[in-house]
């Protein structure tokens, strides 16, 4: 940067520089006699000229003065070092082709900045400066910026929860091309098998990812050591091992540089990353630092993903046991269900439904809602369903079965001090010879079921009763009805009628709107009907938060060909005009 720097770069030359004092008139062309500078009142030009050589030595810029014909008239010491071919009387061939007034030139391994300034009488002056250091710093800054930009991208991509396989694929994909031409990630072996992911740079520069599995015993020794956390940072025969494993394209170890970095895990490494560059590529210290920084982030992502998977595996098993089970197929009954828990990510909630076949060909079915939300509520629904599963074998009369369930729950909740309760409708359906269904329903404080009659009318069954699991010997409502072929009975939870929507999201859907929405739907198959209720509710909610939503529809399917029978149902012309009301 400075003249001194230039001198350092060119040792010996600075000392030998002998500025030509004779040429100094250049600096004051009007002064023909430099020695006369001592005249009173005039600046001490002679003294300045004498000092000039020493002063010029420390300027950042060198100076080359050219005459009107372009020939060099003066070369300052710094300029002489930077442009050694510039000699007095010669021409500045090296810079003559430069057209602009300020330009850069790579010259004798240095980067020079030159600017040409026109002087009087057609002469011109070139100022030349060595900016190699600037350039080096700019390059270093750019490199540092690109490294931190790379790590930011990596953080963005790997900072999100992912499936472990996705995380592994993302790690190798991100490593190419910045860190490697080929990147291989080997994850810690699980039950004797280690999986690997590899990204290779394609012809167009984008990474292509593939993967495979190796028996833990067949892992290259360097990889196996590193996975145990006991590897040296540089391994001489690493490339050969990678070639043997079939990971490097071309199958040759020549000219390939590779590094192996463990990905930190919870205890032992979560995996190891092999990065390789072919044909003259190599890993400088800052490259290795970058690979390590990358590996730290990749390790964290992989560890999180594995941890998440372990937990979701457990959660999934538990969830599966708590999810409502599709009703058991039963002769003469077409089931339809809809289930939408409040917490979509959790998939389970406090609403439940189900059915069991009875030995006499009938079915016991139920739908209910327990107090509370989320996991706790779901666990309670599980207990409740287990109870019913056992109890329906000893008691099939709905009201008595519900009372039995109440006593059992009361005992359990007292024992555990849980204080949980449920509302539910429980019924028994028995097929009739004509294709209809006989229904007996018992109510435990739940919303009364609706019946879609063949006429298109929607009827609300008069069913009430008290909460289940609160008091001994509760009042249980009971009602019996008959479904003609094609008629449907609908059980639903309060997540439907208490869905909040409307203009401001505060209005309840309510039974009237539900009944209205069911108008003209009496010909619908039970699954379509259940879905329609779910849809009407969700449309009303317009993506707002909601309580658990559950619907159980059972339709008298009639004989073998219910649809043919349905066709003869009077008034079933299928129009929106049929107006319906709740009783």
């Amino acid at each position, binding site marked *: 940067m400075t003249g001194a720097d230039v001198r350092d770069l060119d040792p010996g030359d600075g000392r030998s520089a002998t500025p030509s004092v004779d040429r100094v008139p250049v600096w004051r062309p009007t002064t023909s006699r430099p020695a006369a500078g001592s005249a009173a009142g005039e600046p001490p030009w002679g003294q300045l000229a004498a000092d000039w050589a020493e002063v010029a030595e420390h300027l950042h810029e060198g100076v080359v003065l050219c005459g009107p014909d372009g020939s060099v008239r003066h070369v300052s010491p710094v300029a002489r070092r930077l442009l050694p071919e510039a000699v007095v009387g010669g021409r500045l061939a090296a810079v003559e082709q430069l057209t602009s007034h300020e330009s850069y030139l790579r010259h004798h391994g240095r980067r020079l900045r030159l600017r040409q300034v026109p002087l009087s009488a057609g002469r011109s002056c070139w100022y030349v400066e060595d900016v190699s250091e600037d350039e080096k710093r700019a390059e270093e800054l750019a490199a540092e910026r690109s490294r931190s930009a790379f790590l930011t991208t990596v953080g963005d991509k790997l900072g999100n929860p992912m*499936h472990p396989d996705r995380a592994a694929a993302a790690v190798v994909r991100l490593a190419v091309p910045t860190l490697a031409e080929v990147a291989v990630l080997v994850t810690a072996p699980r039950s004797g098998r280690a999986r690997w992911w590899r990204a290779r740079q*394609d012809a167009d520069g984008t990474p292509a990812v593939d993967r495979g599995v190796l028996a833990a015993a067949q892992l290259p020794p360097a990889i196996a050591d590193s996975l145990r956390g006991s590897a040296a940072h540089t391994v001489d025969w690493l490339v050969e091992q990678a070639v043997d494993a079939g990971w490097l394209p071309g199958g040759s170890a020549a000219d390939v540089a590779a590094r192996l970095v463990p990905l930190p895990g919870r205890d032992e490494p979560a995996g190891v990353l092999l990065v390789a560059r072919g044909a003259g590529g190599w890993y400088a210290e800052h490259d290795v630092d970058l690979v390590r920084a990358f590996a730290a982030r990749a390790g964290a992502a992989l560890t999180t993903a594995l941890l998440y998977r372990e937990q979701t595996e457990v959660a999934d098993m538990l969830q599966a046991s708590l999810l409502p089970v599709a009703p058991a197929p039963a002769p003469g009954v077409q089931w339809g269900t809809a289930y939408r828990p409040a917490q979509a*990510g959790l998939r389970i909630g406090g609403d439940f439904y189900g059915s069991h076949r009875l030995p006499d060909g009938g079915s016991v079915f139920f739908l209910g809602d327990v107090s509370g939300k989320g996991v706790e509520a779901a666990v309670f629904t599980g207990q409740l369903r287990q109870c019913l599963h056992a109890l329906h074998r000893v008691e099939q009369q709905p009201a008595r079965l519900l009372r039995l369930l109440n006593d059992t729950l009361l005992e359990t909740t007292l024992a555990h001090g849980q204080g949980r309760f449920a509302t539910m409708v429980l019924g028994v359906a028995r097929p009739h010879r004509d294709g209809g269904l006989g229904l007996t329903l018992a109510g435990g404080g739940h919303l009364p079921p609706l019946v879609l009659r063949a006429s298109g009318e929607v009827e609300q069954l008069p069913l009430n009763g008290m909460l289940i699991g609160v008091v001994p010997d509760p009042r249980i409502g009971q009602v019996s009805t008959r479904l003609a072929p094609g008629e449907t009975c609908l059980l639903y939870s309060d997540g439907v009628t208490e869905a909040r929507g409307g203009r*401001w999201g505060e209005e309840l859907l309510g039974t009237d709107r539900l009944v209205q929405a069911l108008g003209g739907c009496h010909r619908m198959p039970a699954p379509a009907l259940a879905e*329609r209720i779910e849809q009407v509710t969700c449309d009303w909610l317009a993506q707002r938060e909601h309580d658990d939503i559950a619907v159980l529809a059972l339709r008298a399917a009639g004989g073998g060909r219910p649809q043919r029978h349905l066709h003869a149902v009077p008034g079933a012309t299928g129009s929106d005009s049929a107006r319906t009301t709740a009783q």
Partner: protein
Amino acid sequence: MTAATQDTSLEAAYPDYLHCLAEADEHSAIEVAHRLLDGGVAADRVLLDLVAPAQAEVGERWARNEWSVAQEHAATHISERVVAAVAAYVDVRPTRARIVVACMDGEWHALPARLVAEVLRLRGWDVTFLGASVPAAHLVSYLHRYDAYAVALASALPMRLPHAHRMIEACRRSDVPVLVGGRGFGVDGRWARRLGVPWAPSAPAAADLFDDERALRAVPPADLVHLADDEYASLVSRRGELIDSALAELARRFPAVRDHSPAQLDATVSDLGYIVDFLAAALYVDDGSLFTEFIEWLATILGSREVPVATMDASLEHYGRLLHDFPRAVGHLQRGRAVLAVANRQAA
């Protein structure tokens, strides 16, 4: 000439099949499909050349007010049963990676997505169909739990585009590429391009796109710089206020509105809400055609139900007044009114 024979049998089966849908006759509909498969017609042709066009016809009949919502639902249910029967008949063993097919949250027309799922299954993909109206949280937790090669997301509702965008971003954060389809992204997929997500016009096109992972991942970024003007965000936050005000205006100008039954009032509120939602979506992707296409469609629907468009025009006019300092919204509303005037003249 096998192909020709198959064509004929498909063509011959189509009216039969449509009849089965009209009669809500599940068994006969499945029989029609089975006969074709027995006759050697490829499963994907049964799905795409029989089930799909019939379902499109069902939608048309609803739009023309020839069929009730209930009939549409019943027919759709039967189509779904037929798709399941075709899938069971072929029973392809998956040989490729998993693809998750889902409908946008709020999208209840699951059949088109189901058809895509089955066509992908026929091509050997291990397909998981998550069904209608899948909440974003459910989809994302599914992706965390089970690795997926890609997600196919269906939406027929342009007003759900802002939500679709969020859902797409959520999938991508799990490093799973997304492909979208359905009219909700524009007939030519132009709104998908705006959101920076690949789009497929048909099930076979989707299957072809899934074959090329690089094309799936190499998508230009979303082009949503216009959101900086905050018109979208402000409109969304003023939704309730806008609907309230428009309802009061309608009651003032049209005495009949004051005598609406609760159900009619709900319908009016929901129509006023749709207008705001479509306007918001048009602002989100900065494309006025999204709004004018919706106005055209709504005019057709209301026209077939003999609802006068005067109230709709009054609503657009009123929204325009309330949103006077939102230049983009005002422009969309003006063009919407122009479209409405044309539709009105054609109807007259």
